[in-house]
């Protein structure tokens, strides 16, 4: 609708401009034209201004090229990432845009941007502390007792994750059924601090983003350790919601959108962490016969 009005309106106004050459008219009409354009054009929408996104490498970093221009961060620096698969995934993300560049849904690009520019000026220790803080409000530690089926469901699905965390990392945490937060020992926090400090800066940003989306640190640790997959993590985080929707029915435009959004964000963060912390090398097997 808006797109069809603008050219017509502009043509009309510029037609007036040609016939009525009086300066006052021109000035006023130009003013109207400008305000119309501003009104009809949504400034938050960015039209797709490139044909293809490709990657290139420079100084061991990978950059994204939109046609022939380099992709830049919001602050105007050159966008560069440390790993090839991440760059490929970001390029695919840019290529998957159709008419408008839907920036709010480009999670990998957003994660890279925030890791590169650090807009909130967070230090490593601040980031780790924020992540650890989530353990006290971890979704899977807050249990409901009210419908007995839900209680059973929570015990059946969430307990294995807590057991896994205890076995794998030695975390001691007791779930709570009341308003009081679960008890976390200081040792567990120290273990977590050490564990998180072993990640790179970039991966920590991904971790923070993921925990913030999922509202559960233990589920995220299980996901990063490849103990569970993204779908399971999202289902476990939305356990109560799915219990209720099973009983009362789902609303596609709310529940399904939320589920896919969560999956999309979480998988982006998991991939980001993986690609920012892996380092792979290829070792050829020694051949028996000399070539």
């Amino acid at each position, binding site marked *: 609708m808006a797109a069809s009005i603008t050219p017509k309106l502009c043509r009309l106004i510029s037609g007036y401009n040609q016939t009525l050459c009086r300066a006052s008219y021109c000035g006023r009409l130009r003013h109207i034209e400008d305000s119309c354009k501003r009104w009809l054009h949504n400034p938050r929408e960015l039209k797709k201004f490139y044909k293809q996104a490709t990657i290139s490498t420079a100084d061991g970093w990978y950059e994204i090229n939109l046609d022939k221009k380099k992709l830049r961060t919001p602050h105007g620096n050159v966008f560069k990432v440390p790993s090839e698969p991440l760059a490929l995934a970001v*390029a695919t993300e840019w290529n998957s845009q159709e008419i408008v560049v*839907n920036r709010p849904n480009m999670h990998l690009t957003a994660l890279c941007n925030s890791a590169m520019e650090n807009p909130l000026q967070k230090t490593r220790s601040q980031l780790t502390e924020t992540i650890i803080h989530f353990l006290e409000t971890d979704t899977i530690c807050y249990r409901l007792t009210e419908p007995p089926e839900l209680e059973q469901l929570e015990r059946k699905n969430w307990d294995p994750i807590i057991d896994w965390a205890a076995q794998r990392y030695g975390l001691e945490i007791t779930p709570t059924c009341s308003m009081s937060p679960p008890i976390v020992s200081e040792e567990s926090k120290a273990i977590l601090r050490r564990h998180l400090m072993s990640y790179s800066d970039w991966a920590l940003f991904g971790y923070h983003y993921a925990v913030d989306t999922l509202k559960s640190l233990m589920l995220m640790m299980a996901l990063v350790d490849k103990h569970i997959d*993204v779908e399971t993590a999202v289902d476990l985080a939305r356990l109560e919601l799915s219990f209720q929707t099973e009983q009362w029915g789902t609303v596609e435009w709310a529940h399904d*959108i939320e589920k*896919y*959004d969560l999956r999309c964000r979480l*998988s982006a963060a998991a*991939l980001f962490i*993986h690609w920012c912390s892996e380092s792979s090398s290829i070792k050829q097997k020694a051949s028996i016969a000399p070539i």
Partner: protein
Amino acid sequence: MASRSSQVLRSLAKELKAIYKKENLQEIPTYTYLQEQFRNFSVTEQKVCRAQHEVNHVAATYLCHLESARKLEELCSQYRGRGERTIESSANIVGLKLPKLFSEEASKPSDQ
């Protein structure tokens, strides 16, 4: 195990094909990279290999990412607001009709 990874690769190919509509599958750098990774990490003997599990997990995560991004986009475009309704269509929703508007020709033979 092998069938599972080839299934993931096939689904990934489908998702990538939906993004890159014009290109041949082998011309998409992301796909060739994925294929190469799968080939590099494939185990020839029956052994429990952590790397194998890892590459499968990452591929499944990427598949989930592409799939959910596509579905989210579809749902959002389906339910996106299309501006305000007209008075007539809002009346129709609740099963009402608008009264007939006065016009010269229609009002000649008066019923009331």
